[in-house]
């Protein structure tokens, strides 16, 4: 009885795990399957906007996966497949938009942020060093005074 329950639980859970993407495609090689997987993970579902079409079970994602598979089996390149889908659904579906004039700021923002941060750190460090140097360096008059005070101190302890 206990075993039966365990088996039932297992089969039930495996059903949950596979329900996400129900369609099954055949691939001749593992590389092809990997290529398909990479493609559908890079494409965004237009209906359920924060999912890629690999994870989404919206009907439109199913259609898009079928189209990717169909074009792949007809020998299309990744570029051709992506272009064909963008022509229908727009650039919105690209998780990695093209690098071009319009999107360069988007792509460059992380680099700009890191460089800006580095610049700020550098400025702060340089400033604080220069400040310390200025404070520690004594003018000749100050030096003379220090030596005089020290000498007086010596005399006091000797006495």
């Amino acid at each position, binding site marked *: 009885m206990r075993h039966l329950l365990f088996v039932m639980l297992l089969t039930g859970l495996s059903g949950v795990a596979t329900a996400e993407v129900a369609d099954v495609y055949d691939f001749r090689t593992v590389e092809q399957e990997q290529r398909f997987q990479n493609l559908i993970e890079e494409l965004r579902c*237009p*209906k359920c*906007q924060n999912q890629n079409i690999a994870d989404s079970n919206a*009907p*439109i994602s199913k*259609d898009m996966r079928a*189209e990717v598979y169909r074009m792949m089996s007809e020998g299309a390149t990744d570029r051709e497949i992506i272009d064909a889908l*963008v*022509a*229908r*659904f*727009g*650039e*919105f579906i690209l998780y990695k938009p093209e690098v071009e004039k319009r999107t360069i700021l988007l792509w460059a923002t992380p680099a700009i942020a890191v460089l800006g941060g580095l610049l700020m750190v550098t400025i702060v460090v340089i400033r604080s060093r220069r400040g310390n140097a200025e404070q520690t360096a004594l003018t000749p008059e100050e030096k003379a005074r220090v030596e005089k005070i020290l000498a007086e101190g010596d005399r006091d302890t000797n006495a």
Partner: protein
Amino acid sequence: MKRFFLFLPLLIAVVLGVVLFAGIGKDPTKLESALVGKPVPAFSLKDLNNPEAELDESLLRGEVQLLNVWGTWCPACRDEHDDLMWLAQDKGISIVGLNYKDNRADALVWLERLGNPYRKTIYDPKGTLGFDLGVYGAPETFVIDASGVVRYRHVGVVNKQVWQETLLPVINDARGNG
């Protein structure tokens, strides 16, 4: 120079605020169609009302028309149906239907019961034309000009307000140039 750096955080906050404020109120689920400015894709599908007749993209040429994507499985399509009737009957707008991923019997009952606002209805049970048009959820309504070029795509229900504020200006523009 030092003064300028003091104001830098304020400047960044203001710029960020303006950018984010511009995004408020925009519905991110409504995407502009990738087909705007391009002709309706070629297709060859059956007429919903007449299984013998083939329809193709020439159906969408000749005058400014609406192409309305609908299905009996789509509750929002029921919501806009009365307004489509109003557009077809009172405003004299030519509307072509695209019955999307539906079955013929249900679709015919729907038109029988609620009235038929469509000049012709393309029967697309597998959603092939819908896919080529980039349809990602019904209802969607395309404005097609006289030369068969997509001018605009509206995602969601068409009502009198959408008509007045969104579709009518596009149609007037298409008529002026077409």
